[in-house]
């Protein structure tokens, strides 16, 4: 599987005012010929969501079931007809960021209402909360941007199926 570092390197070479034909071709090949990268991204987001649900629910079956249901339902609610692989990933990114933000907000609220909370610990949760808010905002902006740009279709082969990344 092609690595994230390789993709970032190719992106850097392509993201110029006048990218060379060679660099563009390399990026096209990379995106089309690296289905494992797309599968890997989906798996990583899924794994992160399971990790988050486990951490947030602790031993509570009810919380676990509720969050799992939310994780499965929210992407379907945010999906639009004709969404491609990229939009599907971005929707997942929005949902996981929202779940993480909710989890941090809950922790922050629980901690700051404790009588013996120290300034250091309150600051820790404030930093965490700000980071989660930024990540959520960025995820929603990216999804909105990709949808607004209405990119032309780019196809990628994932397994035996040919899937449109962008429609």
């Amino acid at each position, binding site marked *: 599987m092609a690595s994230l570092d390789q993709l970032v390197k190719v992106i850097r070479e392509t*993201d110029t*005012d006048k990218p060379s034909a060679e660099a563009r071709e390399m990026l096209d090949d990379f995106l089309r010929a690296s289905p494992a990268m797309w599968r890997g991204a989906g798996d990583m987001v899924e794994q992160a969501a399971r990790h988050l649900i486990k951490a947030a629910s602790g031993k509570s079956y009810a919380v676990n079931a509720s969050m799992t249901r939310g994780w499965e339902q929210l992407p379907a609610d945010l999906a639009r007809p004709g969404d491609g692989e990229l939009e599907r990933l971005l929707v997942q990114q929005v949902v996981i960021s929202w779940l993480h933000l909710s989890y941090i907000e809950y922790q922050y609220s629980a901690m700051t209402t404790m009588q013996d909370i120290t300034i250091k610990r309150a600051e820790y949760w404030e930093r965490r909360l700000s980071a989660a808010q930024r990540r959520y905002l960025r995820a929603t902006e990216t999804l909105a941007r990709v949808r607004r740009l209405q990119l032309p279709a*780019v196809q990628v082969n994932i397994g035996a199926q040919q899937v449109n990344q962008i429609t």
Partner: protein
Amino acid sequence: MARAGWSDLRPSGGAWVEGLHKKCDMSWEYRGNQRYYYRRRKVGGQMVTEYIGNGAVADLIARQDEIDRQRRAAAAAEWQAMVDEDNELAETIAAAGDLVNALTAGVLLASGYHTHRRQWRKLAGKVTDGQS
């Protein structure tokens, strides 16, 4: 050398320290046949020693201090475990986000966009997205 009957009062984990004129067992100091209980803490980067007393009352205060110390250590360990778990979770989410962001950038570039001052633009030069 510890005196008979006192060893059971030594705080757990206490280490004997040989000084020039005194022996210290954590916060106990021994002079002659007497021992004296002190609290030591850092105030503004300097070590401050506060004399508490001797005798049975000092023993009780020392035991209470030891219980408080153990309670604080347990709370600190619990906090550290929570922070470690939280960091691990944040890293997992960030790693997934990095990959999704890289793929997004890749698709945008492959579709004829590039970044100019953190804005995505068509290569022709027309601004297509006002968001950064």
